[in-house]
């Protein structure tokens, strides 16, 4: 009935595993288990508790430290690549949204201009009609 898995590791232990060249099967399970934890944190990022955010923040600190590290192991390179891909996807989504807003703004301006032209036309016709 007790669920909490024995494969749970701390962020520090995770980055220690990443620095190795080879992992035992147990270490692989632990590494995958932590990466699954991180993935679920990202999926549920708006709803997670402060404690969960704290662990995720420790993971993020570890990942950013890898940028300054020389002679990265294969696992460290892979982890950094995955992190950069996630950042890229976030940026692209943001940029697409900006383009859409600009386009929407242009369309709104055109619609308002045409409406003003119509109103001016109606007023002009009314004035001409009286005279």
């Amino acid at each position, binding site marked *: 009935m007790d*669920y*909490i898995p024995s494969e*749970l590791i*701390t962020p520090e232990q995770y980055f220690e595993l990443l620095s190795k060249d080879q992992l035992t099967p147990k270490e692989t399970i632990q590494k995958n288990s932590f990466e699954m934890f991180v993935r679920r944190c990202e999926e549920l990022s*708006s*709803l997670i*508790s402060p404690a*969960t955010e704290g662990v995720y923040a420790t993971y993020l600190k570890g990942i950013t430290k890898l940028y300054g590290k020389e002679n990265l192991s294969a696992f460290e390179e892979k982890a950094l690549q995955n992190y950069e891909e996630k950042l890229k996807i976030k940026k692209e989504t943001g940029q697409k949204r900006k383009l859409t807003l600009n386009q929407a703004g242009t369309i709104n301006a055109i619609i308002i201009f045409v409406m003003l032209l119509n109103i001016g036309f109606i007023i002009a016709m009314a004035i001409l009609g009286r005279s």
Partner: protein
Amino acid sequence: MSGNNNISVNAAYVASWKEKNPLLFELKTDGKYLTYQNQTIDISTIYIQDLLFNSNLLNSIPFIEGKELFDVIKLHTEAIKIKEMELEEKTRRLQAYGLYTK
């Protein structure tokens, strides 16, 4: 708050959420274990109300899906366990290097 107390408080919170939100009908708890469909987690060592510090979750309780809430609680129990492991390791190191005295 005593150990027994947090179990009854956990059960009370989940029961009140289930009253507000019919989508949580598959969540079952006695305060010690939380069950959703065929999954069970041990919540006897956590304080469910800690989850409510996230105002998004607090505001989502009336309409959140059972699976999503279960996943959030599961993540929280795992995070608490990880933090406990970090604290144990920190204490071990302090004791090993003689910087920590009882």
